[in-house]
């Protein structure tokens, strides 16, 4: 009688040191794994559910302003510093890691309209309703010193926005005209006018640093080249544009926040038609900022929500709101692509996560791998109805929800009417106009 004994050689499964990876014998033969798809589907479903469970985007609220927050500025060199200006002319410097205000200064009388940090991060500029441009040191004044601006420029008209050049000591302001300033001089180097308008915002292109864009109250967006004597081109839309923002990674794309509840992404070379229309807000969009990776942007709206859009998607991937947050006036995406900062009417600045379910802090390698895998699973099964249903569900406040439905109904009705008109008129007399083309009235050369 032969006795068979189970025997295992420990060399096959014991690792030499504890730093080695555990040896896990596996047979990858697909015939041995008949249920791989269904198993992965279950995993994907669980991952989606967990993502929704862990989606807690709101991190902190910074309070201290005594009026609505009108503008904010990111520090160019420090991630933890944020500047904000309010409607009473106060500017506050915040430390984001400690959630506290580091410094407060009365910069202007009336609104602080715009604010920008110099590219080197040593000083910042503010413009206000008192027709002044002020340059301030980033460091707080020492004990006993008075809070005084480095430079003050008194302009002829009110300035409504300011932006600084990416690399040189040049900045641009807008008001009744768009001015290009040299930091060393007290009068503008160049000023652009094109009809009589008041401009609401001006932004330098961060990539092609000599280009600027501005939006005017005559519903137009105007492009400039700092080196040229004249503006470049103007596109007039159906409604007024509030802000524009250039994509920091793609030189010729910019997105503008419009009063007609939509955002429009343009290719600056072809202004006849926006590349993409981003719809979802139910009220005027007030501000927009790109993520530093250029893959997404975030928008702040009068409807008291913040939405995050992928740069090439028509609808938002995320909506943030809280009960107490009123009209969101300004918004910024932090320079490390992790956080979103919103300043709103009710005097608070809020700190959000850019990815709602992301775990913050340093992740262990296993955690990282797991999140990557889950992410890919979610992507893979994103079209499956159950998963999509869970992944795309968001809570909305009642009012916004109803407004949204109402808007949808209105839009549908309009579409239906147009369709009927087309049906009952001579073929070709009522052309089909795409949603993109509808918004553009004219392009002025």
């Amino acid at each position, binding site marked *: 009688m*032969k006795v068979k004994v189970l025997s295992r050689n420990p060399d096959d499964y014991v690792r030499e040191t504890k730093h080695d990876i555990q040896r896990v014998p*596996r047979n*990858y033969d*697909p015939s041995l*794994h008949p249920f*791989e*798809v269904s*198993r*992965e*589907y279950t*995993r994907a479903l669980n991952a989606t559910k967990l993502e929704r469970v862990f989606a807690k985007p709101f991190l902190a609220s910074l309070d201290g302003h005594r009026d609505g927050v009108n503008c904010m500025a990111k520090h*160019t*060199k420090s*991630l933890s510093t944020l500047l904000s200006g309010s409607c009473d002319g106060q500017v506050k410097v915040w430390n984001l890691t400690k959630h506290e205000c580091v410094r407060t200064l009365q910069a202007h009388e009336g609104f602080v309209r715009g604010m920008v940090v110099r590219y080197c991060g040593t000083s910042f500029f503010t413009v206000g309703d008192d027709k002044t441009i002020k340059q301030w040191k980033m*460091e707080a004044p020492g004990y006993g010193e008075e809070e005084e601006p480095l430079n003050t420029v008194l302009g002829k008209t009110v300035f409504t926005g300011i932006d600084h050049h*990416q690399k040189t000591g040049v900045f641009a302001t807008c008001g009744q005209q768009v001015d290009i300033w040299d930091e060393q001089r007290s009068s503008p180097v160049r000023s652009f006018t094109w009809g009589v308008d008041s401009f609401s915002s001006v932004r330098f292109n*961060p*990539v*092609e640093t000599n*280009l600027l864009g501005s939006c005017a109250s005559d519903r137009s967006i105007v*492009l400039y*080249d700092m080196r*040229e*004597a*004249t*503006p*470049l*081109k103007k596109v007039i839309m159906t409604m007024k544009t509030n802000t524009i923002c250039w994509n*920091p*990674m*793609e*030189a*010729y794309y910019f997105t503008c926040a419009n009063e007609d509840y939509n955002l429009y992404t343009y290719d*600056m*070379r072809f202004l006849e038609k926006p590349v993409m229309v981003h719809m979802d807000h139910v009220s005027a969009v007030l501000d927009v900022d790109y993520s*530093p*990776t*250029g*893959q997404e942007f975030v928008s702040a709206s009068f409807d008291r929500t913040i939405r995050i859009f992928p740069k090439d998607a028509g609808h938002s991937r995320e909506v943030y709101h809280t009960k107490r947050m009123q009209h969101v006036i300004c918004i910024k995406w932090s*320079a*490390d*692509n*992790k956080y979103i900062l919103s300043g709103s009417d009710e005097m608070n600045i809020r700190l959000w996560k850019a990815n709602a379910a992301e775990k913050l802090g*340093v992740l262990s390698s296993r955690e990282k*791998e797991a999140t*990557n*895998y889950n*992410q*890919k*699973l979610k992507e*893979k*099964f994103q*079209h*499956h*109805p*159950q998963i999509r249903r869970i992944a795309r569900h968001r809570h909305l406040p009642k009012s916004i929800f109803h407004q949204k439905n109402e808007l949808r109904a209105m839009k549908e009705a309009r579409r239906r009417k147009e369709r009927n008109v087309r049906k009952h008129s001579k073929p070709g007399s009522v052309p089909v106009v795409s949603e993109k083309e509808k918004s553009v009235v004219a392009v002025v*050369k």
Partner: protein
Amino acid sequence: MVKVSKKKGSKRRSKHGSDEPEVSSVEPPVVYDDDDDDEDADLNAAGDEDLSSEEEENERKHQKLLEAISALGGEKKQLGERSEAATCMSEFTMRAEGEADKVQLSDLIGTTPAVSTHVRKQLKDLERSKKTVECPVSKQETQRIQRDLAFQKAASEVSRWRSIITQNQRAEQLVFPLNPEPSGRRPMERVVMGWKAQTPLEQEVFALLSANKQPINDPVLTPAEEASLKAMSLEEAKARRAELQKARALQSYYESKTRRERKIKSKKYHRVQNKSKQKDLLKSFEEMVKVDPQGALEELKKLELSRMQERMSLKHQNRGKWAKSRAIMAKYDLEARRSMQQQLEVNKELTQKLVAPLESEEEERAEDADMLPDCVNVTELQRDFSNPWMRGQLSQESTERKISSTESVTVEAAEEEEEEEEEPKEEELLRELDSRRKQRQTEESNTVILIDDEEEEEEDVTKKQTPEKQAEAPDEEEEVMKDQTLEEEAVSSDEEEAGLSEFTRIFRGLTGGLTAGDADIRGPSAQLEEGLIRFRSVEDTEDLPQEELVAPPPAPPSEPALSSECQVVPSRKRKKGIELTEVLTKDTTAVRVPLAPTITDSEDQLDQRGLIKEAFAGDDVISDFIREKRKQEEAGKPKAVDLTLPGWGEWGGLGLRPSKRKRRRFRTKAAPAPPRADRHLPSVIISEKRNSSVSLHQVSSLPFPFENHAQFESCIRAPLGRTWNTERTVKKVTKPRVLTRLGTIIEPMDQEELLKDQKKSCSVGSKKTQK
């Protein structure tokens, strides 16, 4: 508007003569003012009318007079006298005669003293041309054009980024920030931003440092160094540094090597070294003779020169100080004598006239002739390997074909060939059991080994025939091939090297140079050893002695059967080709017969089966299943529809049924159902009904980026997890699209990216052109 004088026209006429007045009068005046040409035209017409012949005469006379005066006065110019009030005065000796007159270009030319003929001609051409310059556009229009131009410029400038943008859009992974700071220690300066030298000493030191452009902190580079770093891109710099490092390392190695060699005192070593050097030299020289005879000639000349020098000099002639001392010692010291002898030899060698190269060449040719067949064979062999049919020779069929073709070769030889084929697989075993084998070598008899060999062989055949093995078969073949090419290194055991090397053996077998005698000589020893190897199969190496005891008794009776089997199996295979399964099953049973443990195993199995049967005696699963399937089939069949209406054309009522004829007539047969998917699968029921509970989880329509269902399905079917993929695949598949570093600022794209991109594209382009 320029006031006009008609002087020019008259002048012309005077020059040309009076033979062609019509032409000149017809000739339209050239207009210089661009603004309002219409008015001009009117005025000119009026002027033409005014001109009468009298005036012309006067003019001419006056002209002559003027000319005469000017000739008298040399270069002196006279200003036209002003006799009456003129609307316009001209400084160019022209009178203002009336508003209708016009200044012509030629007038102006006439006044300027030195105008080259070339310019004159050009101006004349200009005069003759009738084009008018358009009036300048309005301010708005000019601005519009300026804007348009500026926009086009900006647009083209911005379009440079297109390639980068599309690249990034397509990229599988984007890593931000784009220019990550190099990891490691950062200089103090960058960490502490607002630091200043405060004490006077510090200030002094820093002033000194900055004055000399020295680095203020340790790791910081001087401005010059930084500039040079910036001049090169990081990758370039890295590559360059690596290159330099390598060069330096090589140099240092070489230096150390030579130093070491120089320190070696052993004369023998140096002698050997020198000899080898000489050999190398000679070899290279021979090659040179073949490759470029010109260079070889030069070399030869050099040698000749050295010979001449040697002859001229007194070196190696034992006349130096050292040689003399040696000569004194030579009487007593053998070593000294030898060294002197050597010197003389060297001298001889050097002074010898060189005819050697030619001889060596001839020798080499002879060698080549010797070598030739070998080379040819090698190439043949390679070709054979590349040829799948020839490669097949290593597998069984071909060997057998060989047997049939060359009948002189014995069966043992064939077996041996097979053993050779299997050997590489079992090389590890071979090494493992080297010692044991040696022990047993003496004890075991040849016959037993032979039998065992055959068994083993058969087992191998069966292994190959099982489906799993079949899939791997090509790999194995390749392995065999590789092994054979590397055999000389791989097979290190001495007993195998005892005879001919494996390589040559195979090669001989291939070329057909294998004679029976050779095989006989080689046969037994090889068989013995390899047989031992084969004897050790994978499963039982430990209980070998047991087998030795057990195996022999049953073996002899089974031997003929087995051998017949092993011959039969391949033949069948040859006949049928594909139907391996039958052969397979039969084979396995055939193999298992002689082995006692396997028999018991099968019995065990039978027992178990019986047990199960007993346990489930009441359940007739199979018939149940069949019944179930029938039911399903029945349910799936379409049913006939009866459309007869009772009472239609007939009496109706309780207890009355429509007539058979009616019923037959109004009965509609449904179309036959499509064939069931499981009609050829007796043990399967396939239901093709849509399951609503499942459909909830299914994708109803093809999602966007996919073009067809197959694409989507294949995408879903490919698993991502580590349960089904290797670690590397998982890493690759699950890497996130956007990667950012914690706590780093992501700067907007810089112009440098553009340069990088250009460089990349340039390099790609150059590579392409090279290809």
